[in-house]
């Protein structure tokens, strides 16, 4: 374990690097109101965050990351375009892997720029890569925008698309729904019996609770509609599978995606964006011939990241978590913006774990 004072010094050095690149230094409270985080991430976050109780403010959490408070700060008082940098501890309860640190430093860089999102993607990636020099790390990238566009373009009902989109960051559940909508998996137990009933409300007993009889019959209607809808075709499922299984260099993947887009025109715009981003990356000195692209990158641990996503890994140290991660999270600003009425603010950013830089032998020269 590296000395905390050294980690803090390394974090300060990295934040200084982003500052010299034009970012404004911002701070965030360690104690965050739990309600916002629970509404965003659901009950699961209780298992991952430290929850405490304040006699006056109610439930609070030790900040599990900076993204939410920085977005809120920007929405409340920021002018656009804006570039922010910050550093400090984040706190993650580790129920499963007890040996992972429950608190560690992060240094972050976030860009809020409505006008040039693709260039902002490339800027954040290139800048973080620059901050990690001279370490030689493997970068992995992905683009959740492709998968989202593919699902939106499926030839099926809006309800089914909405159900798939809602679970896009939960791959197992997404797969179960897709299998069912494609007619590959049976209906949930009891569904057929329900739909066979002339009057489903027979034997229902008294109406209790907040969910009204109208809501119940609405869903029964929706289930009938769903039962009558055609299955998602095998071809479409296979194209989705192709997309998710992509694993090649960014320059090669573009060619492959053009092929897929012939049969799945809904992703054409997303492929154009990927190509434009690749060009923007090249302009910033990134070699896209060796930059890994993974079709499923960002699906398990990056909820609300809905565009370009990336991570930097020390290949010789598979035991370590990623040294840096980031991406575009317009979906997060959309949800937070809906809550306070300020609407969506396109945003992209990334974080570095300074103690990993020290452990891997960079930053010593500072």
């Amino acid at each position: 374990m590296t000395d905390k004072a050294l980690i803090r010094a390394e974090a300060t050095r990295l934040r200084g690097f982003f500052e010299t690149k034009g970012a404004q230094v911002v701070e965030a409270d360690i104690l965050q109101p739990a309600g916002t985080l629970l509404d965003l991430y659901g009950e699961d976050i209780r298992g991952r965050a430290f929850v405490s109780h304040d006699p006056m403010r109610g439930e609070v959490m030790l900040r599990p990351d900076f993204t939410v408070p920085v977005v809120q700060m920007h929405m409340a008082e920021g002018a656009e375009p804006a570039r922010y940098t910050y550093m400090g501890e984040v706190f993650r309860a580790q129920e499963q892997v007890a040996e992972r640190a429950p608190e560690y430093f992060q240094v972050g860089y976030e860009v809020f720029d409505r006008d040039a999102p693709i260039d902002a993607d490339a800027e954040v990636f290139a800048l973080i890569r620059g901050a990690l020099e001279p370490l030689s790390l493997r970068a992995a990238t992905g683009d959740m925008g492709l998968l989202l566009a593919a699902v939106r373009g499926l030839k099926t009902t809006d309800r089914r698309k909405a159900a798939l989109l809602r679970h896009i960051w939960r791959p197992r559940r997404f797969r179960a729904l897709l299998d069912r909508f494609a007619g590959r998996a049976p209906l949930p137990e009891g569904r057929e019996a329900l739909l066979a009933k002339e009057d489903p409300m027979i034997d229902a007993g008294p109406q209790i609770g907040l969910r009204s009889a109208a809501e119940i019959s609405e869903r029964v209607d929706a289930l009938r509609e769903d039962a009558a809808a055609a299955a998602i075709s095998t071809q479409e499922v296979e194209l989705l599978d192709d997309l998710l299984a992509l694993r090649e260099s960014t320059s090669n993947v573009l060619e492959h995606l053009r092929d897929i887009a012939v049969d799945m025109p809904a992703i054409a715009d997303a492929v154009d964006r990927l190509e434009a981003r690749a060009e923007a990356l090249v302009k910033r000195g990134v070699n896209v011939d060796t930059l890994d692209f993974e079709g499923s990158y960002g699906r398990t641990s990056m909820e609300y990241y809905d565009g370009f996503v990336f991570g930097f890994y020390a290949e010789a140290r598979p035991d370590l978590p990623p040294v840096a991660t980031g991406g575009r999270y317009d979906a997060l600003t959309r949800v937070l913006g809906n809550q306070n009425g300020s609407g969506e603010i396109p945003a992209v950013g990334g974080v570095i774990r300074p103690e990993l830089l020290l452990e891997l032998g960079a930053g010593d020269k500072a």
Partner: protein
Amino acid sequence: MTLKLGVPSKGRLMEKTFDWFGARGVELSRTGSDREYAAAVKGIEGVELVLLSAGEIPRELAAGRIHLGVTGSDLVREKLAAWPDKVSELALMGFGHADLVIAVPKCWVDVNTLDDLDAVAAAFRAKHGFRLRIATKYHRLIRDHLRDHGVADYQLVDSQGATEGTVKNETAEAIADITSTGETLRANHLKILAGAPVHKSQATLFKARGADWNDKTRATFAVLTDKLGINA
């Protein structure tokens, strides 16, 4: 140094535990007045009986303050994160059976599985502006179960008693609780979701991995498990 055995301090769980040990030649009993929490062990040397609330036995086991303990398997899973690192199951004792289940109003004819519950939670949140509330005292078990099954847009509200009444009182939309016959659920117009219960609980004899296992306690343990007919 004696081997400390923690058992529930009152009620049927205590009586059944005493019976279970008694049937295997280890006589446990309370001593002194009815109100005094003192106990004795006959039939084996070196075992000290500690009477505790069943809900506190998981914590005492995890801390290693008792070597062995009898409590519900549900309580160990609920109260101890990564429980297999802290305790091991020596014997399922065959009583105190109860299922941890999720129940919804019977009038929800469209809900039969967790899959349905998840879809309803999404619609409920869109309509009512807050996450569908599930009343329970089994926060960890329910949260893990719902995460494993990909259920989203719900919240757990704490309910330490009369949980079945929360739906009618409109402080929750669904509940998760222990039931053995389902009678109270039915009486409150609730139905259990199809599929396996979240957990099938029963009284279980646990061994604390972190207790002081020295030559003496290990020797006592060997004699005790032999008497109890446990391979440990």
